[in-house]
């Protein structure tokens, strides 16, 4: 199974490829489409997915690590 997770500037994490979304007890979360956007601003009304609210919230975040890798 290969997939990529990409942080988009000031926006969500986009997941592509061959992935499964599962809840803590292993229950499948229906993604609804091949490429999904996961909310990382915390303000979406359709979590875990992004609904565009990050723009209203003026969410700021970069596209890489904020700090060097710890190891």
């Amino acid at each position, binding site marked *: 199974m290969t997939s990529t997770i990409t942080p988009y500037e000031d*926006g*969500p994490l986009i997941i592509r490829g061959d992935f499964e979304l599962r809840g803590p007890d292993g229950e499948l979360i229906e993604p609804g*489409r*091949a490429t999904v*956007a996961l909310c990382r601003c915390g303000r979406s009304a*359709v979590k875990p997915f*992004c609904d*565009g609210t990050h723009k209203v919230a003026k969410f700021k975040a970069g596209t890489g690590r904020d700090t060097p890798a710890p190891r």
Partner: protein
Amino acid sequence: MKLPAPRGAVSAAAIDLLSGRDVAVPAPDSDEDLQLALFICYEMAYRGWDGVDDAYEWDPGLLRLRAGLETRFEAGLHELVGPPAPVEPADVPRLLLETVEADDGPALSKYLRGRATHGQFREFVAHRSVYHLREADPHTWAIPRLSGRPKAALIEIQLDEYGGGVTDRMHQELFKKTMRWFGLDLSYGAYVDSVGAATLRVNNIMSFFGLHRRRRGAILGHLAAYEMTSSLPNRAYASGLRRLGGDADATAFYDEHVEADSVHEQIAAHDLCGSFAAAEPELAGDVLWGARCALAVDNLWAGAVLAAWADGRSSLRDC
């Protein structure tokens, strides 16, 4: 779809030409006349008109008529937003974001969420049906004109627009559920006769950009503007429809767009327009121009609809 009734000399000429009569090409009598004539010409590249020979799509007489109308149409766009201006290719995603953020068009989505009557929402759906029943099609024309990363990005978006190849999930099909809830006519183009110039212009601009390879930058900018101004308004439409008693089927199209376009807007700004501008830097300015045109033309439409409602009129021409 049935040929519409003419709205002036040039739309009458377009209809006559498609009916096999020899015509002299007059100047448009009005914007209604111009927009309808152009819509009639363009439809030959989509699904055509009942009783009209498909060969007219490439008929030199029709193309000559269309080119004359396009000159006027383009002049109208320049009047509205000015001409394209060169931009730094690397700035395209950021400039797209600034463009949509700076847009302060009429608050149609707010009105639909909080105040629209059942009848007004139904009119809104009738207007939008002219596009939504062929949603994504004009942007698909850009695919063979791209290569590499921007092409893959466009396909990633379009695949989702077409439901990943599952008929019922195609956005064009989902919209029929909303139309059905309102008891509207589901047939393609059923409301062309009922909508005014502003609605036709919204559709014509996509054909104007999409059918010409040299306007590939503008059609991509148009798509980005649509994707980047979609998730929040669609949430408003869905809650407006629920306020009016709409069930899950009625709101499915809007609910789908909240999630789908939150994905598409990222792909459109960065992977599609950003990488397209890097690959074809001389067209970077066209991308921004296409986005500005898309917003301006949609705002004219929203303004016309709200103005009609503010006057207590229907926003449709007859029904």
